[in-house]
């Protein structure tokens, strides 16, 4: 019975109009309310030679895409329009194909594929070799944080200069990042600067990123790595080469300041180094490194320049928010960041290797002492990479968003 209905005649017309209106309204409302953006993350950032290369590679692909899209969809809709039974009462000719047309329809895609292959190979040849003058940075990814170290900068206090979750790089110079993972697979992605590379445990891979424009760029882990995959972010701060060199030199000479006896920082230092065995509070130093102190742990991010950093929890909080979250973070890290492997210090439980364990206990005073010590871990002013570094894509205000200090 339904075979006699004409599906076109009823129903969808009114519904379609309604939906179109609905879409426009929602989109409009969303755009009006949500436009206070302060970060423009895009792989169309032409300040990066990498992105320029893929743009010019893609121009041809985009052109072909538009031609094919328009051509094929026109052919489709024109065919349907012309030959639907309402418009065409002629008995269909029973032909089985057209060999000449078939050959053309194979040949054209083949030609396009050849052109695109050549373009791909050419871009690969330009992008993948590591230039000799490249700045070398090592990236270590763990659940759920990053360590960026500078193999060429040996610290006077031992070890190499390393920063957690904030990567400093020079502008106008290719940066060769060598990445590996300490546990599961992760991936490094800062779209404004270049492509992704997976971090695989037991394997080191090197690729290049670059930018011409100084500023703060957003980076993210892009390969599912567990509960806080979405909270495994980082910042890349690109500095003019001279400033970058200053940063590296000063960072290499840096030793964590010795707190004044009796100060909050001093109490925090003691807790940091020794923990509080009587309440089961583990020492921070067991997992974290602080350059110029005995703290040389490797299970957590490097804290040497913690006071200079403006993000917390691997980019989970920034600026004033990071400032505000420091105590809650120290008190119960897995409570505020799912799956965080740092033990809680307010007696809460957390999960390690599937086993529920109880964290140690520190008083609020003790937590704030540790926070005070952490904030004191600051690079000298001339090496403060955040100073005057604009957030890329923000509405022009350079770094107005506070800091953890």
């Amino acid at each position: 019975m339904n075979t006699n209905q004409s599906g076109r005649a009823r129903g969808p017309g009114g519904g379609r109009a309604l939906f179109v209106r609905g879409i426009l309204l929602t989109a409009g409302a969303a755009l009006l309310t949500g436009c206070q953006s302060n970060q423009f993350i895009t792989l169309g950032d032409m300040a990066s030679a990498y992105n320029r290369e893929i743009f010019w590679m893609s121009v041809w692909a985009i052109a072909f895409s538009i031609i094919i899209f328009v051509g094929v969809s026109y052919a489709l809709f024109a065919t349907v329009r012309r030959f639907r039974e309402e418009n065409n009462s002629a008995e269909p000719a029973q032909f089985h194909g057209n060999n000449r047309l078939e050959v053309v329809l194979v040949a054209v895609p083949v030609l396009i594929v050849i052109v695109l292959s050549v373009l791909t190979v050419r871009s690969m040849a330009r992008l993948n070799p590591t230039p000799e003058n490249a700045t070398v940075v090592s990236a270590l990814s763990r659940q759920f944080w990053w360590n960026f170290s500078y193999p060429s900068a040996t610290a006077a206090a031992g070890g190499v200069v390393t920063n957690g979750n904030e990567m400093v790089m020079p502008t106008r110079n290719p940066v060769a990042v060598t990445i590996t993972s300490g546990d599961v697979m992760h991936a490094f992605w800062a779209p404004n600067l270049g492509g992704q590379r997976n971090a695989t445990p037991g394997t080191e891979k090197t690729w290049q990123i670059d930018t011409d424009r100084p500023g703060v760029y957003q980076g993210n882990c892009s390969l599912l790595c567990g509960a806080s995959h979405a909270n495994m972010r980082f910042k890349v701060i690109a500095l003019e080469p001279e400033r970058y060199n200053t940063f590296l030199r000063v960072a290499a000479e840096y030793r964590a300041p010795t707190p004044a006896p009796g100060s909050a920082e001093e109490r925090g230092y003691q807790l940091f180094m020794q923990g509080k065995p009587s309440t089961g509070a583990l020492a921070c130093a067991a997992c974290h490194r602080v350059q110029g102190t005995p703290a040389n742990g490797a299970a957590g991010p490097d804290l040497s320049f913690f006071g200079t950093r403006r993000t917390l929890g691997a980019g989970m909080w920034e600026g004033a928010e990071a400032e505000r979250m420091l105590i809650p973070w120290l008190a119960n890290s897995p409570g505020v960041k799912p799956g965080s492997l740092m033990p809680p210090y307010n007696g809460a439980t957390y999960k390690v290797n599937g086993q529920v364990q109880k964290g140690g206990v520190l008083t609020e005073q003790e937590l704030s002492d540790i926070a005070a010590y952490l904030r004191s871990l600051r690079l000298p002013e001339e090496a403060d990479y955040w100073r005057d570094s604009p957030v890329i894509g923000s509405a022009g205000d350079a770094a107005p968003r506070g800091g953890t200090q």
Partner: protein
Amino acid sequence: MTVQHAPQTTTTSARRGAWEVIKDYMMTTDHKKIGLLYIFVSLLAFAIGGLMAVGIRLQLALPDQTLLVGNTYNEVLTGHAAIMIFFFLIPIGLFGFGNYFLPLQLGVRDVALPRLNNFAVWLFIFSLILILTGLWNGGLPGVGWTFYYPLSVDGNQTGVSVFMVALILNGLGSLLGSANFAATIVNLRAPGMSLWKMPIFVWSIFATSILQLVSLSGLTAASLATYLELKLGLSMFNPGIGGTPILFTQFFWFYSHPAVYVMLLPYLGIAAEVASTMARKPLFGYRVMVYSLLGIVLVSLLVWVHHIFAVGLPEGWQIAFAIATLIVAVPTGVKIFNLIGTLWGGRIIMKTPTYWLVGFIFNFLIGGITGVSLGMIPFDYQVTNSYYIVAHFHNVMMFGTAFLAMGGLYYWWPKMTGRFLSERLGMWHFWLFMVGSWMTFLPQYILGLLGMPRRYYTYPAGNFAWTELNFISTMGALILLAGGIVMVINFYQGLRGPKTASNNPWGGYTLEWTASSPPAAYNFAHEFPRTFPTERPLYDWEKSGQTLTPVDPKSIHLPQDTIWPFMTALSLLFMGYGLSFGWFTNYTPAGGLRAFSEAGLSFQIATVILYLSIPFFFYSLFKWAGTREYAVPVEHHHLTKYDNGFMGMAWFIISEVGLFGVLIAGYVYLRLIGAAEPPALRPNIWLAALNTLILVTSSFVIHKAEQDHHKGRYTWFRLGLLITLILGAVFMVFQVYEFVLFGVESDWKQNLWQACFFIIVGLHGLHILIGGTGIALPYYQALTGKMDKYNHGSLTAASLYWHLVDVVWLLIVAIFYAW
């Protein structure tokens, strides 16, 4: 019993109790009921997966939402993907429509191995149930459907082992189904129908089945290796002992890329059927379309690396795979052009199936173009793992092939139920899905270009346009939900009301339209003319005036219903449950080996279930083997000289070769790069040589036994089988001895070579057990007098499998004992 009841069941089926219906589906060998089971369960899975997707979108509607946080989000995400892929898109096209329409289109009464078909469908259903049992055993896995190593063995993850076991069981069902289709196509077609006269849908199922058989081994290898690491600490990937996690991604994508085409090819077949019927025209370039199907099968096996460009493999490899990836555009383009060519010049019936078809072509065009862009490696480095990818694969899956799943339902619904779906609701369904899909996924392309990574449960406010685009996307998902509700209403209504559909409501040209709507249990009460001038027999016969010859349904014999394939599958559900949540020892990767008494109660219960399931399995299997397929002696017709069992096994063996091939390739790679070095003390070659002798001898013995059976020397035949079994048992005794010795000598968790040895040689040992069981079946059939001149039981299949096991052993001796 069906022999007598077959004509009546269709008339009395209207008023049966629920239990009667369920029992019928448990015992059925009818490919149509099995097809309906696949379709029903797939649609149920589509609903579950769809609701999960709505949950995901609600969480992402605005920044910093708290509906699904952290690993909970990951669990929903994994569930959504796994259910949509393995329990909706793959099964509904390949096995749902495939089972229902392949025999009908070939003009035959059933698939080659109807009871195996019942086993396969229940294995499929039980693997879905098995995954869901994870819900009360610690939760679903939160590792993504890709279960990348080493996240899959991360101590904080739960539910990974059940996911692995369910994938292996689902894969087994899938392989059996695929082998069954291939055997059906080769062995059972209407007399006179050559391969080149088969309907395009049959070709698409054939191509997909071959692809499944060749490639599924990658997934099985990946899940097996992961499972063995979870339960025994055997690892091929552990970087701590020299393994490499990248090898896992190679295993995984070796299947999971072709899987994309398993989710595409059957639907391209449906698209071609719909286009030809609705345009009232022959296909444009039938042969070219078949060649492009086969071309896609071939090329799809050579592109998996494009999923892991960002891993950073050597450039030469990346470029080779990138070019292969771009080449896929050629046969895929041909399919699209030829679909439009089929519509061109027709008198197109604009009904819901046509709308789904046109919607598919348009959407797939976008998905295809964005897919080509992903083959351009430097661009891929940027957008892989981003929302661009999410948009792309939903573009080709959700509003690509799933549209054709819907189109297939609207197209064949009258044939399957005798009723029509409502056109009015159908149009609502279509437009809600269309607009909903565009709104959900097109913004995600932009999100990807704006740097939003996939699989993020949250995102901060303030990134340019992220909030707005995510919000639009969520609105789209809600529209899709509305479309889903309309769909359910339409399907529900489409099962009620009077049966008004004629045999051929759309004017189709293929043989299924000569059956009644819905078809009787025996499919056709007529025989077909023997001439097939083109792939459109009904059109040709009408032109030439040839007619169908009526057949008395009472003279038709169908396989008898039996409960034992179902029971065998049920035993595997229990075994799977036991293997997932229990184990023979109390081992965990984090905790190591501990006393069994220290394990939790649920672990101990699951282990008891595991032990109990083993006798249950063997009992059911032997009961199955002991039940004859037909209640009365039936003369079988096949197009080749091989019986259906042999033919099915011959196709199935491709997958076994693939499984060993993938694992051995992994081992050889690890060996060549110097990561897997044999320890000083390793299994003795002399014992292996003795075992080789035993196994080769057994191959000759079973061959002789087969000959004896042919010549009617049944005593010698039984003796031959018994000797083969004894030789197999002796082999196993030696191997167990060797394993125990080697396992005690050194720690397999610390040596990669040893781990590879135990995984691959152990898997071969398992195959000896399976093959031995396979030989025990005809032996049992012979002992109980079920084998004679006409009944070969499962002899030829068992014998062929045993030869395979022997050949694999020779390879193993070469690479593990001699090298």
